[in-house]
């Protein structure tokens, strides 16, 4: 078996240890004998190279870097990513990328910045006096996702995945958040998790992240996947399923250390 992972803008959108997500996806495939290649897709890379990837990742950025990415993503890579997400290709968008796949980002001063419109959400920055949302975070996956996601396609629920792929009963996700923008979800997308500790999407509605088809958006870095290995496996599982047209069971790995690191945040 083979998987090809697209890593979008590794030199521009990789600020908060985002590379960790790629390392974890790659290693967890390799440990299971799945041949894996991470393709670095940046400004100069033709968009067609994206199209034969099986899994997409895009991470956080500083403002200047995000501006540099802006036009390329909106005009060239974004539409391709949108098609792929619609087809069920699994994806992970973290921090700036999470904001970027929404409809728009409104800074506290100046014009709205258009997003790629892949996710039904928007982000607003309430002003430079508003507190940045910073700190260790814990959230619980929303298990009621199951039927809704399933009716939308062939996706399995996160709740089910969380308990079926790990010997644990809880389905918490842990990470670190650091964002000024507040993200609000529209009716066509579901929240990923319920915040237990921290702020999440906007610090108001108690939700964190978003899930649409097989694509996840989240403010959690830390990075997200190392300490939440079952989410990594869910993405890998989905990628294989879409590519080979059938559910492929993943060999279990020894995740003792992963869960020790996870539990140290709870």
């Amino acid at each position, binding site marked *: 078996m083979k998987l090809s992972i697209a890593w979008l803008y590794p030199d521009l959108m990789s600020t908060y240890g985002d590379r960790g997500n790629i390392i974890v996806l790659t290693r967890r495939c390799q440990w299971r004998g799945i041949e894996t290649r991470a393709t670095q897709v940046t400004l100069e890379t033709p968009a067609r190279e994206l199209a034969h990837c099986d899994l997409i990742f895009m991470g956080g950025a500083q403002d200047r870097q995000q501006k540099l990415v802006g036009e390329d993503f909106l005009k060239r890579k974004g539409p391709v990513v949108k098609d792929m997400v619609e087809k069920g290709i699994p994806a992970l968008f973290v921090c700036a990328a999470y904001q970027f796949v929404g409809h728009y980002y409104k800074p506290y001063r100046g014009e709205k910045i258009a997003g790629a419109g892949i996710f039904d959400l928007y982000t607003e920055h309430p002003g430079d006096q508003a507190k940045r949302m910073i700190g260790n975070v814990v959230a619980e996956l929303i298990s009621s996702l199951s039927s809704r996601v399933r009716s939308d396609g062939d996706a399995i629920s996160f709740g089910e995945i969380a308990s079926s792929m790990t010997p644990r009963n809880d389905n918490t996700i842990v990470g670190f958040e*650091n964002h000024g923008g507040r993200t609000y979800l529209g009716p066509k997308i579901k929240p990923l998790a319920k915040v237990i500790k921290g702020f999440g999407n906007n610090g108001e509605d108690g939700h964190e992240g978003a899930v649409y088809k097989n694509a996840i958006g989240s403010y959690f870095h830390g990075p997200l996947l190392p300490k939440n290995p079952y989410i990594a496996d869910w993405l890998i599982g989905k990628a294989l399923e879409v590519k080979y047209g059938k559910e492929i069971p993943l060999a279990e790995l020894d995740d003792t250390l992963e869960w020790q690191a996870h539990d140290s945040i709870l």
Partner: protein
Amino acid sequence: MCLNLAIFLGKIISFISKRLSFGAGATWPGEAALRINPHILSSFASQFRKGIILVAGTNGKTTTASMIKTILEAQGLSVVHNASGANLTNGIVSACIGQANWLGKIDADWGVFEVDENSLPIVLAELKIQNSKFKTTTKNLKFIIVLLNLFRDQLDRYGEVDVIAQKWQRAFPRLDTGNQAIKPYQFIANADDPLVAHLGEAASSRPGLEARALYFGLNDPKRFVKAVDHATDSIFCLNCGGRLSYEGMYYSHIGIWYCTKCKEKRPIPDVSDWKSPLPGLYNQYNTLAAVLVAQTIGISDKKITESLVSFAPAFGRQEHIGNAYIFLSKNPTGFNQSLRTVLELGSKKLLLVLNDRIPDGRDVSWIWDVDFEMIPKDVSVRVSGDRVYDLALRLKYAGIKTTLYENLEDALATTGSFYVLPTYSAMLEVRKILKGKKIL
């Protein structure tokens, strides 16, 4: 009166905290004095007979400032210096209080201060306030501002590298004296860091400067890296936004850079070759910066060389205690550089310590930007610290076996020489265990 009261209180606190050996003794006296007199720093600054040297940047501040102090003192000059690494305004004021008499008089030639990235604009603003005094007192006083580098570091505390650069750039015009007769500022900047060099160039065109910025940098293609580090922060042109090209990179985004689009390029260094008293490429840069400062104030090359021969590393920076060598490693670029250096020194035993307290930054995501994969299989690796599981997990995914110690004292109990790479608060803990309570 206000000054005297502030000094008096500061000195009392300094005395008490030293007697009781409180760890925070390096900042409390300054903090108390600042509460009474917020502009106390400018009262001190105008008293230095020769001038003030500020050292700013993400990595290398302590070592560079310490080298400058060593060179100056070897020439018989007296120096006030925030040696304990307390580099916020309160730490700088504390250092001055420590040297001042009970009337607030400082008897010293130079102030050599390392300054925290976020505090540089505040400190510069204080210097401007006292600038008016120079007009009547002395015209030969120098201000030297050394810009070492900017790397990602504690994003939850400092914010992004670009934000810091913007704050600095906004702070520099405040230095304009408006009086062409007095041009006391001299920038000394790293030519090989595109962001810092850009700041130097921008500052050079300002009126009121003594001269254009002076640059240090390396011309040594033998030391170019073959594979580019993952932790690079500034590889896009500040001028036009184009991707920078490099004749070669030394580490992170440090190298001989140029922009193919707008033709902006790395400035030609004024000093590029000097033997470093400490191992590590990053110390080569620290040495070049210190040497350029010394040359700028007229110290001969021969005397600089002589004074650096016996240079002893600053605390926690390649410091040797018992069988341990401590290499402070607090951000991806610093960690990569420390790792590379200890491996070049032939280290077979490493202890990595990761804390997530305020001085370390609460976010430990950055360990995934460190290239731990460079550690060879025959090196034994111990891990410890508040976030020991995060660190062990990172190393697991780098394919490196570790021994995990929840207790730092146990981790430090080993025979034979070993190398400790700790974050800031972890470094203080390691020293405390190895040495006893006192910071210096």
